[in-house]
């Protein structure tokens, strides 16, 4: 074995007058590594920011969501630990800008208390965040102010009251730019809700209660009271829950971006294989001379392996450095969807991971052409016409296998799902094989149907495609894979856009009017007609209650387990009743129906077909009712069916405004 320093010396000597060719190699991987490091760093910074700012995202230790005010029993339960809390009622309403005389639909948030307890409402001027609560004043979203030319000191009219604009709302905890644009918020003090005449019977109001616990562990407390809150139809969220929700939501984004970066790197790696292939072909004679002078096959391979490793390392370090720079741009790109402030920090693990991945990818993909170095005959020094590489090399198959294992392993690390990682790798392999097949077929067809009568320029051009040392197959594969990846990205983008724009497509309605009484229908139709707004569908809404599911009567379930709220004993899990078994262990009754199923008033309607955004997941749409004893077939939203523990075929009895009627789950 030669001294390692000799390989480095020889690698340097051999490369020094061809370094411009090796720059191609570096360029092939720099961008891929830069993309990988920037997305890895951004993802890790985002996770840390979510961890660090989770309290600010929620603004409190726990938030209760409800469509009704808290009962005394609810309050008693929530006040088991010393706390301070705030109440917020939010609803959609028109707001009228007095100065411009224009109005717009906004999200009115009527608030009382010192919310937020973590983070702050960012306003201009700063004191407005506190001051508006003391007077008949409002905080108005900054884009609304810009849009309607209003400014602090002007008035807005909400309901029957005028509010002076105390300041512009620049940022609110947990809300991103997009959510504030879609539903721009206007904050007012809660005590003006009633005088403004905004709360009427049937108003669609959401209640949020922000709790800041002064003692104890809020998370543990939430775990203790959570089932009881759910039992009375209250939803809650803690800091940890928000953190998990956000981490999961943004993990998908960052992992998707990382996979895209990895694909970019793999494309670069194909470029590496191509550039090393060209480089080695140009070096065949030099290698033959060295072999003639006494260099062994393995030693010749090592001389070029050192070059690849050094260049791969250099490209990876450059790429990783560029990635750190690019990373600073990503928060700006995603600022509209990020509800938190992301800070730039150098993530050294991502930096070094990028370098390691870059070196490994460079090495693996360069190994394919490098292996041929071992097969170069010294006889080429005497006979230049000799075919440079002869015979098949079983080591190539080993390299192919290692490449596939590496791609699978890396994608598994990103997706944490073995099946998806295998599908990802298999798809890549499939695309590669298909493109290789197409390239070979193309070459075959060119040879078979060579345009002999075409002008010289064309004939030479086509002939170069299949002459010795051509790069036709590798170029077609590289360009094809690049096009496939870009096409896939566009396809995914379009798929997502299609999903959210289904309702905006030509035939779908884009406005819903509720609570139209029979005697008002004609008038509404006439009004819509005046404005050339076709009424797409008129559907009745009937208020009902469920009184029986699978033979379990609501009054029995409600009677068995006492009243709602804090006093209820073991009021049940969302989908199954828990009871003590004979041995004292916890027994789960999968047939049980939660009490809240019978507590809620439901607004029920019908349609004879699904819309574009709906999908039938089980059963079938309702069958015709032929007689008075036939059950009426109904369908439930999937999440309702799961929460209520109602399955296809279950008989359900409704109380339709005082009349009990039997229906079957469909």
């Amino acid at each position: 074995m030669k001294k390692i320093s000799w390989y480095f010396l020889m690698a340097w000597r051999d490369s020094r007058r061809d370094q411009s060719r090796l720059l191609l190699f570096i360029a092939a991987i720099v961008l891929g590594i830069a993309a990988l490091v920037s997305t890895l760093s951004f993802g890790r910074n985002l996770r840390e920011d979510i961890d660090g700012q989770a309290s600010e995202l929620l603004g409190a230790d726990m938030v209760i969501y409800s469509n009704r005010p808290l009962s005394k029993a609810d309050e008693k339960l929530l006040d088991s630990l010393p706390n301070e809390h705030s109440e917020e009622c939010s609803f959609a309403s028109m707001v009228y800008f007095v100065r411009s005389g224009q109005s717009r639909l906004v999200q009115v948030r009527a608030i009382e208390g010192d919310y937020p307890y973590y983070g702050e409402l960012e306003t201009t001027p700063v004191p407005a965040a506190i001051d508006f609560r003391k007077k008949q004043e409002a905080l108005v979203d900054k884009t609304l102010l810009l849009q309607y030319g209003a400014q602090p000191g002007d008035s807005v009219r909400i309901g029957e009251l005028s509010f002076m604009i105390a300041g512009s709302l620049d940022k609110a905890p947990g809300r991103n730019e997009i959510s504030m644009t879609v539903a721009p918020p206007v904050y007012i003090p809660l005590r003006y809700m009633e005088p403004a005449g905004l709360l009427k019977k049937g108003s669609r109001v959401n209640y949020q209660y922000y709790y800041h616990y002064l003692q104890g562990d809020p998370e543990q407390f939430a775990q203790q009271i959570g089932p009881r809150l759910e039992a009375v139809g209250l939803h809650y969220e803690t800091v940890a829950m928000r953190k998990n929700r956000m981490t999961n939501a943004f993990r998908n984004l960052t992992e998707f971006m990382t996979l895209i970066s990895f694909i970019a790197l793999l494309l670069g790696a194909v470029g590496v294989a191509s550039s090393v292939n060209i480089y080695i072909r140009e070096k065949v004679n030099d290698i033959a001379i060295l072999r003639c002078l006494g260099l062994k096959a393995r030693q010749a391979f090592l001389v070029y392996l050192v070059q690849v490793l050094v260049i791969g390392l250099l490209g990876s370090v450059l790429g990783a450095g560029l990635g750190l720079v690019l990373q600073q741009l990503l928060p700006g790109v995603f600022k509209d969807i990020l509800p938190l402030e992301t800070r730039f920090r150098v993530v050294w693990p991502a930096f070094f991971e990028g370098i390691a991945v870059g070196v490994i990818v460079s090495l693996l993909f360069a190994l394919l052409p490098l292996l041929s170095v071992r097969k170069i005959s010294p006889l080429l020094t005497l006979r230049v016409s000799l075919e440079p590489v002869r015979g098949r090399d079983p080591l190539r198959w080993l390299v192919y296998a290692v490449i596939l294992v590496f791609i699978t392993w890396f994608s598994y690390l990103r997706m944490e799902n073995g099946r998806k990682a295998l599908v990802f790798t298999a798809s890549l392999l499939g695309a590669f094989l298909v493109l290789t097949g197409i390239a070979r077929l193309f070459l075959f067809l060119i040879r078979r149907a060579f345009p002999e009568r075409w002008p010289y320029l064309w004939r030479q051009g086509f002939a170069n495609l299949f002459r010795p040392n051509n790069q036709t197959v590798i170029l077609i594969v590289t360009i094809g894979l690049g096009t496939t990846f870009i096409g896939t990205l566009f396809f995914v983008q379009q798929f997502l856009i299609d999903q959210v724009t289904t309702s905006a497509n030509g035939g779908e309605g884009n406005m819903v009017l509720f609570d139209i009484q029979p005697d008002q229908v004609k008038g509404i139709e006439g009004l819509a007609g005046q404005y050339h707004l076709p009424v797409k569908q008129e559907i009745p809404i009937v208020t009902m209650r469920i009184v029986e599911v699978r033979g379990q009567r609501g009054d029995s379930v409600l009677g068995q387990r006492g009243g709602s709220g804090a006093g209820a004993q073991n009021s049940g899990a969302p989908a199954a009743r828990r009871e003590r078994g004979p041995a004292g262990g916890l027994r789960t009754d999968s047939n049980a129906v939660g009490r809240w199923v019978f507590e809620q008033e439901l607004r029920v309607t019908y349609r004879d077909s699904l819309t574009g955004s709906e999908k039938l997941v089980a059963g079938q749409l309702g069958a015709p009712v032929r007689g008075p004893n036939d059950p009426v077939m109904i369908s439930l939203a999937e999440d309702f069916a799961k929460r209520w523990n109602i399955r296809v075929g279950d008989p359900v009895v409704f109380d339709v405004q005082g009349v009990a009627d039997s229906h079957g789950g469909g």
Partner: protein
Amino acid sequence: MLKIEKVSKTYTAGGRTLTVLDNVSFQVGEGETVSIVGPSGSGKTTLLGLSAGLDRSSTGTIELNGVSLGALDEDARAVLRNKYVGFIFQNFQLLPTLTALENVMVPIELQQSDLRPRQRGAGGPTGVRARAHELLEQVGLGDRMHHYPAQLSGGEQQRVSLARAFANRPRILFADEPTGNLDTETSELVAGMIFDLNRQAGTTLVLVTHNLELAASTGRIIKLGKGHIVSDETDLREVPSDKKKTL
């Protein structure tokens, strides 16, 4: 020094078999100078390649310095070449990314780094450089050592090649048309250097050439025709072995 016995070489291409050398046998003694001549396609270069261990014969045996090449794999033959063989090519075959000095150093570096430190002799890397320096001075290129091959004329490149061929003190030198790419004047200069250095080192010389004048400068001429030895003539001017020197 070199023993060729019943050697044949056949190539198969497109289902056809072509016999380039057919049952060739001869021996070359230590210090002998031999020319192999013959028309194009007579098998000269093939014979040179086989003799130097660059290729394998189809049949027959070849012994170089007492070692049967047939028993060695490619790597073992590479070690043998580095240890005992020097090459001079028609197209010089210098490494274009190495300077003249580095080109001459390579065979010594390969040899040195295969030896244990005690076997390397005095000097180490400095000794390698000094040896290459000395050889380049001998071929008159003391002032061109740090030039790359592309910066040298054909004659100069062949002189670098000559210095490289003698760098590892070979026992046998194979030269393939060493003056084939040079003008008459330069050819004479280079040929003179080959024979001078060869004489000084006492190296066995096997020369493949079309140039009968150059061939006449060797002690023996083997003439090939259609893969067979047509004649094998020994000249009385053969250099006696007791005059061998080492460089």
